[in-house]
């Protein structure tokens, strides 16, 4: 421990000296320090998550009580306070876009990746600090463009987060904002992923071979490869759609379109399916971009809080790699209903079934780690444990959607919404919350309140299931997604009580986040101070230094002597960075 305290005091001295060297704007706004950039990503992403969530809370009013004025704040949006179908479509499209591209990915990859990855490989910073700075600000600009689109004459993009043409091409200007915003976000992701991969591979400290990487590092690297190689096709598609909108080309417009009774004056000859291919070529790997950092975080937290080695580390890593690879050849299972032939659907059903195998292996290794362990129920561990069954539900419900025959009925219904929200909300987001609780002491040197954390956890876990579980039943009943008012349909009206229930649960979920936000904000200053630099007994490299880490992360050289999750014979954790057993 003397080593730790030494680091700690040293770190303090150092950060003081840096404070004098750099002006505020260089230290906190345009900083090249990966830790500051990580926090910038984190704060921005949390803002966008809350914003996207807020959009959904408003939509939930319309869904539960169609065409009734939203109480108190409805007048802000429309004259009569009723959410109009135009706004509903805008909110729907932007909810998806913001949550995926501006919320979960920047939080999982931008924030956790940036903050933890250099620490976990023992580096002093990312390989290209200026590029890191650039990628944050490009992301920021992309976000601003997306938000600005709400103020464009006819509002934001309203063609769904998938932006299928021809609808998106004939849509209002918000779509142009969306496309330009996406080009920025994609560029930011590309820069970030180059940085991640180079840092992880090149800046490893002595002794840190690939098979000694913590799970989170592996997850981040595989994620970075997905972003790097899957995003460019969407960037190309985005440019093509921009051309369609601005230069009058017909990449995605077939000949002979008649929109609102007028023949569209374009050359025609394009193909709307092409967009779907290019979009899903990214957007399926994107699902794994959303989930893999979460898988990594859960792995770290389980490893620390079960007080035993992670079961089947190698199998787990190979599964993550295989999962990432396979995610590139399943994309067309999102397009089963576009009229594809038997051969093509057979191919994509088969690959979809194959990709379920590594997912189940990942889940199994985590479940098996629990056996024979001694589970310490910290707040992050609660979230990490909850992740397992939630992810399982999300994964299992993918099965009927991945088989074309059952997909016929379930495609584009609430079943799909339930399926991917189980993966992303109580899945990824729970894991990311777990990560916040777990690494908060690392970042600030203080704990978050345990009591508030437990309140947050139990309220959230109940409310979130109340939101998403009924969606499976709605989907079964055949209620399509993206409907402004499902009660118009007889089967929609019959399922409407579920909608009311879901809305109440969604609002409860919002309330449940208040203790979390309060906890995050106040613990920074008033939280219980940590007594050692390694409060959880972590074995990976980020715990080798002071908490919070000094500007250059490691003041004394570190070296790695063993795998990430090992224990000594007297059942004490054996950190990677300690030479003697």
């Amino acid at each position, binding site marked *: 421990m003397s080593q730790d305290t030494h680091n700690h005091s040293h770190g303090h001295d150092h950060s003081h000296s840096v404070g004098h060297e750099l002006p505020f704007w260089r230290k906190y706004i345009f900083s090249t320090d990966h830790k500051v950039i990580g926090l910038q990503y984190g704060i921005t992403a949390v803002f966008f998550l809350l914003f996207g969530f807020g959009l959904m809370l408003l939509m939930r009013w319309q869904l539960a009580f169609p065409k009734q004025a939203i109480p108190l704040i409805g007048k802000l949006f429309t004259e009569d306070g009723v959410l109009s179908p135009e706004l509903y479509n805008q909110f729907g499209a932007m909810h998806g876009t913001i949550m995926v591209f501006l919320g979960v990915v920047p939080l999982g990859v931008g924030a956790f990746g940036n903050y933890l990855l250099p620490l976990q490989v023992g580096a002093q910073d990312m390989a290209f600090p200026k590029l890191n700075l650039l990628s944050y600000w490009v992301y920021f600009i992309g976000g601003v463009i997306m938000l600005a689109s709400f103020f464009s004459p006819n509002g934001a993009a309203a063609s769904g987060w998938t932006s299928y043409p021809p609808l998106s091409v004939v849509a209002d200007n918000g779509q142009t904002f969306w496309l330009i915003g996406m080009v920025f976000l994609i560029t930011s992701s590309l820069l970030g992923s180059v940085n991640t991969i180079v840092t992880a*591979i090149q800046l490893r400290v002595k002794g840190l071979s690939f098979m000694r990487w913590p799970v989170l590092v592996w997850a981040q690297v595989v994620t970075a490869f997905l972003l790097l*190689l899957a995003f460019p096709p969407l960037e190309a598609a985005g440019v093509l759609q921009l051309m369609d909108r601005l230069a009058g080309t017909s990449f995605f417009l077939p000949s002979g379109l008649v929109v609102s009774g007028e023949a569209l004056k374009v050359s025609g000859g394009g*193909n709307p399916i092409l967009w779907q*291919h290019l979009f899903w070529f990214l957007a399926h790997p994107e699902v794994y971009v959303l989930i893999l950092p979460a898988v990594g975080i859960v792995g770290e937290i389980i490893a620390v809080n079960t007080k035993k080695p992670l079961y089947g580390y190698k199998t787990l890593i190979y599964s993550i790699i295989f999962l990432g690879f396979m995610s590139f050849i399943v994309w067309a299972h999102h397009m089963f209903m576009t009229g594809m*032939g038997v051969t*093509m659907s057979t191919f994509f059903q088969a690959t979809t079934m194959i990709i379920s195998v590594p997912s189940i292996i990942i889940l199994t290794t985590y479940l098996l780690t629990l056996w024979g362990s001694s589970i310490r129920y910290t707040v992050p561990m609660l979230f990490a444990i909850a992740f397992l069954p939630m992810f399982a539900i999300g994964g299992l419900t993918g099965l009927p959607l991945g088989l074309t025959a059952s997909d016929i009925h379930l495609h584009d219904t609430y079943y799909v919404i339930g399926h991917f929200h189980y993966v992303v909300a109580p899945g990824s987001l729970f894991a990311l919350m777990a990560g916040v609780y777990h690494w908060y002491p690392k970042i600030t040197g203080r704990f978050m309140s345990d009591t508030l954390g437990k309140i947050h956890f139990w309220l959230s876990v109940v409310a979130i299931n109340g939101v998403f579980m009924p969606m499976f039943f709605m989907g079964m009943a055949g209620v399509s997604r993206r409907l402004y008012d499902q009660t118009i349909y007889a089967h929609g009206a019959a399922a409407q009580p579920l909608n009311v229930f879901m809305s109440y649960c969604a609002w409860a979920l919002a309330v449940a986040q208040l203790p979390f936000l309060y906890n995050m904000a106040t613990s920074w200053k008033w939280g219980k101070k940590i007594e050692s630099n390694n409060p959880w007994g972590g074995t990976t490299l980020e715990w080798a230094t002071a908490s919070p880490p000094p500007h250059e992360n490691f003041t004394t050289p570190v070296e790695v002597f063993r795998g990430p999750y090992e224990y000594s014979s007297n059942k004490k954790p054996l950190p990677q960075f300690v030479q003697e057993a």
Partner: protein
Amino acid sequence: MSHGEMTVEEVKKHLRGYYVVFGALLCLTIITVAISYLHLPIHLAILLAMAVASVKGGLVAAYFMHLISEKKIIYSMLWLTLILFIFLMLIPIFTLHGYK
């Protein structure tokens, strides 16, 4: 051997190679333009043009980009890219033939 640590002599040896490749590229450019004026049947024309382009691209990649003597890490990354590129090229096949 890494060209990152090449000696002056080795660089000089390389120089001749660059000029040879340059000559080859110019010849291939002339060939591919000449072929196009023959107005061959379209399938043959595409095949020939892409074959010539691949050879040219291969020369650039191998000699100018030094892929002929690169490190394992770069190779493995490029193999991965190549495989995913092939997946990407399934899109035309699926779009054109998958809807029958």
